């Protein structure tokens, strides 16, 4: 047994002891042959994590060190200035932690009061959390300090800027700053011109700085899967539609959402960026699914094509008598059902069409039905129990998210009670309770192909599950704070997650690795949506901005500003031309996504070259305010009618 291993086991034993788990402790001792534990062993796990902060530096010198560094940054040439200024915040944070760790409470407070307010606005939230910690013992088990300690703060910096910095540090012999920079900062070097303020700001803001270049080097198969040939299943093939639209830019993956797009004529051409169809196992389509797909295709033919000159109609569903009790809303793909989650742990499903919600007959009655008749599916349903809405009870905490399957037979929900539940929309009962998350589950989403689903939680993990397995298939760990939102890629090979650490990550379902790390948001991310072509990802955040990312290289390509509150809902139109965003400021904004795609197609991008971040002014089509009803959910129907859902907040 290596010494390292032994230390680990000792740490585990320590924890077992702490929680008074005596049996497990003695078992582990036996198995590890550790009978001779020194009684005075007081190795605190968190202590070891923070040990690097042990410093003999003069606590009063920190102030002057920081002032000097800031003066150096200020007096630097403009081309280096902004890149250099990026090091101020991490140095400040680590100085503070070092002071607190070494028990210099007064000096720490002074440093915080003097220099805390002048840090960038998007760090203020973290600074406030940090300023709460004024004593060494408060640091143990604290998320924020642990995060700062165990991870390096990443700064992208040009070679010239870095050499300038190094020269300065050597000249000044500022050991305090030098130590911090060596220990806790990671410089991601690149050749070429130093970035200007705008470029620096665009990707700054995450909890631990920017993404390394190698974080985004892996190839991502963002293309769409080849659609199975529905033509064989249909008796009457609908004619190919909207040729002109595909002709506009054939090289761009601007096809419509694969599920609905009947590329009957030319469907043999496969997307060069698409993953192999057997990369991730996908369930076989059942007859029911096929019928549903065909129905969707037919419906899609009647779709209105949107653009700046033909804006969609919006139907707004207001939830009345529900002040502050509704926590989430979800509309089924075919827009026939709506599920509302409440803070009192119930879920209510409404039929949005005149057809009522019917229930399967009981087993005795089902026995009597002749299975060979044509309308056996209809006969299985009990019309007497049909209703316009149904209630699900089972959770014990507020329901934070719901998700329908494509065929509307199942509904997933996640809750504050740390569980995910699968409900049947035929028997209207709970089928499975998935337990695994350790903390409240914030979001759950079905894969577009069904069977798989992804959930994200306060425990900083996202997990991929299959409906038939009570254990998660993948656990995505890497985010540094809550994962607030998750989303399956249209090809089901990837999962995107947005977190309170202000980063968006893309995970490979096959390997479980994170393949993209995207920074630039300045506040927690609450909504994500993939473009219909699969290449772009839009994310909405409480920094009031919708960011659009190019998954090919993980670049931020557009930052759509305009909202004045948290953006909780995003949705692409079915033809992929319009992006709708709804926020708590009671505004719905429509963005011209086809124009953005067009502008982007001209740009030559690669992994090291960051494209210019486009602002939203050119792309905003319209804003529609509601009357004191913030948007909870947005949904485009198959015919491109936009549904919005919200509750009325009377003042």
């Amino acid at each position: 047994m290596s010494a390292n291993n032994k230390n680990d086991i000792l740490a585990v034993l320590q924890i077992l002891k702490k929680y008074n788990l005596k049996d497990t402790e003695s078992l582990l001792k036996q198995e590890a042959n550790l009978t001779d534990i020194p009684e005075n062993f007081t190795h605190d796990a968190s202590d070891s994590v923070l040990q690097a902060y042990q410093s003999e530096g003069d606590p009063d010198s920190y102030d002057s060190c920081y002032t000097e560094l800031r003066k150096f940054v200020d007096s630097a040439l403009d081309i280096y200035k902004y890149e250099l200024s990026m090091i101020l915040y991490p140095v400040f944070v680590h100085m503070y932690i070092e002071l607190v760790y070494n028990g210099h409470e007064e000096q720490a407070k002074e440093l915080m009061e003097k220099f805390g307010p002048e840090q960038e606005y998007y760090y203020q939230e973290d600074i406030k959390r940090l300023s709460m910690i004024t004593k060494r013992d408060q640091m143990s088990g604290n998320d924020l300090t642990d995060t700062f300690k165990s991870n390096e703060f990443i700064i992208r910096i040009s070679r010239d800027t870095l050499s300038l910095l190094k020269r300065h540090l050597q000249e000044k012999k500022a050991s305090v700053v030098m130590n911090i920079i060596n220990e806790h900062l990671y410089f991601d070097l690149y050749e070429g011109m130093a970035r200007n303020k705008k470029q620096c700001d665009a990707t700054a803001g995450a909890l631990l700085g920017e993404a390394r270049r190698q974080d985004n080097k892996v190839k991502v198969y963002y293309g769409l899967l080849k659609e199975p040939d529905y033509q064989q299943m249909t008796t009457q093939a609908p004619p190919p539609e909207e040729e002109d639209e595909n002709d506009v830019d054939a090289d761009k993956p601007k096809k419509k959402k694969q599920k609905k797009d009947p590329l009957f004529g030319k469907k043999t051409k496969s997307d060069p960026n698409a993953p192999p169809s057997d990369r991730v196992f996908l369930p076989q389509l059942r007859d029911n699914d096929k019928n549903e797909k065909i129905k969707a295709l037919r419906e899609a033919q009647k779709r209105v094509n949107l653009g700046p000159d033909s804006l969609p109609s919006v139907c707004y569903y207001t939830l009345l008598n529900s002040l502050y009790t509704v926590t989430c809303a979800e509309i089924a793909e075919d827009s026939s059902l709506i599920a509302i989650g409440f803070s009192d742990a119930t879920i209510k499903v409404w039929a949005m069409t005149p057809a009522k919600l019917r229930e399967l007959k009981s087993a005795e009655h089902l026995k009597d039905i002749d299975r060979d008749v044509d309308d056996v599916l209809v006969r299985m349903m009990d019309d007497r129990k049909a209703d316009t809405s149904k209630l699900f009870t089972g959770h014990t905490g507020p329901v934070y998210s719901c998700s329908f399957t494509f065929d509307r037979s199942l509904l997933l929900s996640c809750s504050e009670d740390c569980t995910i539940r699968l409900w049947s929309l035929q028997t209207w009962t709970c089928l499975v309770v998935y337990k695994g998350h350790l903390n409240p589950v914030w979001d759950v989403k079905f894969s577009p192909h069904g069977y798989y689903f992804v959930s994200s939680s306060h425990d900083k993990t996202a997990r991929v599950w299959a409906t038939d397995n009570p254990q998660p298939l993948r656990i995505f760990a890497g985010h540094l704070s809550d994962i607030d939102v998750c989303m399956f890629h249209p090809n089901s090979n990837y999962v995107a997650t947005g977190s309170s650490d202000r980063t968006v990550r893309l995970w490979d379902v096959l390997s479980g690795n994170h393949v993209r790390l995207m920074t630039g948001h300045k506040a927690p991310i609450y909504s994500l949506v993939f473009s219909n072509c699969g290449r772009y990802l839009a994310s909405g955040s409480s920094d009031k901005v919708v960011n659009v990312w190019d998954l090919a290289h993980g670049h931020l390509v557009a930052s759509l500003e305009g909202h004045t509150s948290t953006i909780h809902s995003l949705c692409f139109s079915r033809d992929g031309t319009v992006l709708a965003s709804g926020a708590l400021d009671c505004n719905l904004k429509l963005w011209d996504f086809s124009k953005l795609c067009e502008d982007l197609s001209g740009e030559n991008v690669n992994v090291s070259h960051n494209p210019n971040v486009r602002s939203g002014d050119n792309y905003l089509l319209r804003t529609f305010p509601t009357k004191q009803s913030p948007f909870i959910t947005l949904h485009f129907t198959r015919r491109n009618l936009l549904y919005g859902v919200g509750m009325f907040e009377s003042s």
Partner: protein
Amino acid sequence: MEDKIKNPEIQNSQHFGTNLSLESIKIIAESIGIGNLSDAAAKELSDDISFKLKQIIQDGQKFMHHAKRSRLSASDVDSSLKIRNLEPQYGFISKEFIPFRFASGGGRELYFTEEKEIDLNDLMTTTAPKAPLEVTLRSHWLCVDGIQPTIPENPPPLAKDAQIQDSVNPVKKLEKTDLKDTSGKPAIKAHKLKTFETVHIKQLAQHELSVEQQYYYKEITEACVGADEGRRAEALQSLSCDPGIHEMLPRMCTFIAEGVKVNVVQNNLAILIYLMRMVRALLDNPALYLEKYLHELIPSVSTCIVSKQLCQRPEVDNHWALRDFAAKLMAQICKNFNTSTNNLQTRVTRLFSTALQNDKVPLSSLYGAIEGLSELGHEVIKVFIIPRLKFISERVCNMQAADISNTERNAAGHIRALLAKVCAPVLKTMRPAPDVLEDYKRDFGFLGPALHQSVMKARQTPNTAQPTSSASISVPSVTPRITTTPIQRQISQTQQGQQKFYVTKASSPSTTPANIVKIQQNPKIFIQSTPKAVSFVNASNQSLQEHELDDLSHLA
């Protein structure tokens, strides 16, 4: 470095390291029976508790965000305690308010939770509280093909704030280059010029009404002055709560102004009442800001207050109710729109008070002026009516002679009753307690006994007299004199008893250009350019008038 601080909020919230005060800790310690907590211990506790509380509240924020709220509730704190494996605080279910009460005394201030003892018997006997309503879904069109319909479910196309800005701040209009989001209409595409010249072309204001709006205007105006009482109620209801009529407002106001002009000449009481009810409905509409249209509304309303004759048969018809109603409207207008720049109330007060100075004013106009002033509040009564009481008294006294017509005598009676009503509460406060009839007779002449009686009565009843109008009272400091504002001119014309019309120049850009009413010697002949106004002149009959008056008394 200053540019680093982008967000102005941050600058105001530099509260790092705020902790619970030591005193709070000591009070809390006392409440659980620890009397002598040392400062050091309190400090230690305060640090620890503050740290933990902040952590809990910060976690609670996450639950708030995921419930898509922007307000932290007690349940969020519970949830945040739960994820720390702490027992939640049971019993704090209030969503709407923080259940703490403040108390101070003996130099100490503290907040406490109020715990009432509940008598179970009472709880048993009282009826069960109403069950909360079930959540329901309701749908409406937020937008149709990119155009937001103006229905009550949608916010008004131009918010009231914007309307206020529009009428108060003239620069606003020049700044507004982005027409995109202002109304439900699609954006107007700016023409791209090939060459740039430094010529400023003033954008033509768009005031065409859509077909639907034209239809709406027609329906509403017809219903408002038509014979069908049910339809009128609906139309007024629509005027008073529809958020989308902002664009039609200029036309509505012109309709009212023209209607009043025509029907005052015709002495058509019913129509005047209907028009005043329209004014009332527009005033009531929370989505409208009428400031820009006061130049049309105020003359109309004041005409209905002080006009010499408002009905065919002054001796029987109750035109007094119309005057009362219009006076209330005027007070409301003053209250809503008086600013230091338009001096609205001052001008209105001046207008009415000139009528009190003049002894040629017909009695009906005098009544209107008194009513108009009295609606503006106690202070106005005190300054403008009370000093003129003797003068009015003489005029009323003269009307008691035998050769005076019934109409005049009737009017005198109304004035007397009105003065007794409005002056009593003011006189009560102005004059010391022993009310001597002789003093009243000496001070107020003929009206003395009536006033004396009502003041006596007022003294007996408990002091409930509050100012009738809470509008800020602006009293012109100099003695009122006649100025030649259009409003005044009109009134002085009516005061002279000649039914004349004056030429109005429509300053609203939307009105049709020809709006000139010709001045004619014969009051019965007039030429009116808007055919609409003429068409409803004969739409009323006597029975309707009676009905209307009942309505008015309800409204008033």
